[in-house]
């Protein structure tokens, strides 16, 4: 059965704390931390971007399963911060990992759910017999305008998944998407920072899509929240996933392991996938995992995974939570320089 053969993650070492951002803008850090549920976030270094994050995560995935890189015949990179407006990230990743030259490749964009969209495409291509192994990556170095509330959460990081049929560590039991035209968050061509619909990002966007997708996939598989060991939802902040989990009937124990947002922020296309990776880090054979991403614009991809026996002999070090602990704190000045918020003339 089609599933995940391997996975890898990358979280930049730099972090900035909510206190440091609040200090600059004269805001109350405690009320932001409790309101948003984000305490610090990961920041890409000057020489890190979506391509480098994708390559590092993909290399870790390849190393862990030992599949020869030429057997990778599909590479999809989902991001809303591709380094080029025109010139694919997927070609850079394919070259850097040494994927087969006869390789299906494309960049995907769907706000924060482009990574899970890539996983769905790989699942379908493996099922159709077009490829043996495909690589799907979700990575971002998301931007926010200085002083905007998004600055506390917009972060950098990513995860990569090798999809195939042999030696899977987790089988994809089902996947579906729920999609509507909802303008909750957008960025026009050529603009450096995104705009968002303020309160509009909650009910009609995040909650409606995540809830509907998760509810439907459970319903059509005759499963309920008690049937899952873990659930992971897209994490634009620490509050939304906690609330949607409660609405669906999941306990806080079921979502705690994947709730990486408090410590690294919202890594956009990497967000739900890093949470899911943190869950795979500790998952045991037979356990069921629900994953539901969300992308503004808007849509949700839901998956039901079942962990296999193979996970016991699969190397999972270093774990996502260990990478989260390896933090180097920076001040707002260096952060502004790294994120190019200082205009060079």
């Amino acid at each position, binding site marked *: 059965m089609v599933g995940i053969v391997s996975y890898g993650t990358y979280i930049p070492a730099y972090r900035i704390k909510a206190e440091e951002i609040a200090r600059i803008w004269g805001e109350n850090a405690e009320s932001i931390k409790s309101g948003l549920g984000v305490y610090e976030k990961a920041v890409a*270094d*000057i*020489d*890190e*971007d979506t*391509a*480098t994050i994708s*390559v*590092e995560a993909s*290399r870790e995935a390849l190393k862990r399963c030992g599949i020869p890189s030429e057997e990778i015949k599909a590479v999809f990179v989902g991001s809303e911060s591709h*380094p*080029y407006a025109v010139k694919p990230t997927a070609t*850079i990743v394919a*070259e*850097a990992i*040494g994927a087969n030259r006869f390789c299906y490749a494309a960049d995907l964009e769907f706000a924060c759910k482009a990574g899970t969209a890539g996983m769905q495409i790989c699942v379908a291509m493996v099922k159709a017999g077009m490829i043996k192994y495909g690589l799907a990556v979700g990575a971002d170095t998301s931007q926010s305008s200085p002083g905007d509330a998004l600055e506390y959460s917009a972060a950098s990081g990513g995860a990569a998944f090798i999809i195939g049929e042999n030696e899977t560590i987790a089988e994809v039991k089902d996947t579906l998407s729920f999609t509507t035209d909802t303008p909750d968050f957008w960025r026009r061509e050529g603009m450096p920072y995104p705009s968002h619909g303020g309160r509009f990002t909650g009910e009609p966007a995040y909650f409606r899509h995540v809830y509907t997708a998760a509810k439907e996939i459970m319903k059509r598989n005759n499963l309920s929240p008690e049937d899952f060991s873990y659930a992971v939802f897209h994490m634009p902040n620490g509050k939304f996933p906690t609330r949607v989990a409660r609405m669906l009937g999941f306990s806080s124990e079921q979502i705690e392991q994947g709730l990486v947002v408090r410590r690294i922020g919202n890594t956009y296309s990497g967000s739900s996938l890093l949470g899911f990776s943190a869950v795979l880090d500790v998952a045991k054979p037979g356990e069921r995992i629900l994953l539901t991403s969300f992308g503004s614009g808007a849509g949700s991809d839901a998956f039901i995974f079942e962990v296999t026996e193979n996970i016991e002999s699969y190397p999972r070090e270093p774990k996502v939570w260990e990478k989260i602990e390896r933090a180097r704190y920076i001040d707002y000045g260096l952060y502004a*320089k790294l994120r190019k918020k200082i205009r*060079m003339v």
Partner: protein
Amino acid sequence: MLPRFWRKIKYRYRLVGSYCENCGEYYHPPRNLCPKCRRKGSIKEVPLGSEGTILSYTVVHDAPDDFKLQKPYVVGLVKLDCGAVVTAQICCKPEEVEIGKRVRAVFRKYSEEGEDGIIYYGTKFELI
């Protein structure tokens, strides 16, 4: 710059080098001829592995414009475990680098040709 970079992309992105089947030496960048064995040598392209040790380094304070945002930065000679020696940037603070420290290859951005130009990527090293 662009065609020259493009031709060597494989060797910049991945640590691929040459191995002489006659004397067992590894070389980076790749060579067509083994400098030791000359015509007796037999050269083959191989992956060089990703870990090594710092042989020597220098801290760059006076950086060209493309690297201004990175200064001061460390450039080092890294002896890979196979024996090949690679020159590359070491991603750490100047006060953290030391001869003999273990390093691992990472994929990073080298430079950009301004805001509208090509972005160059390649191999750097980080401390283990």
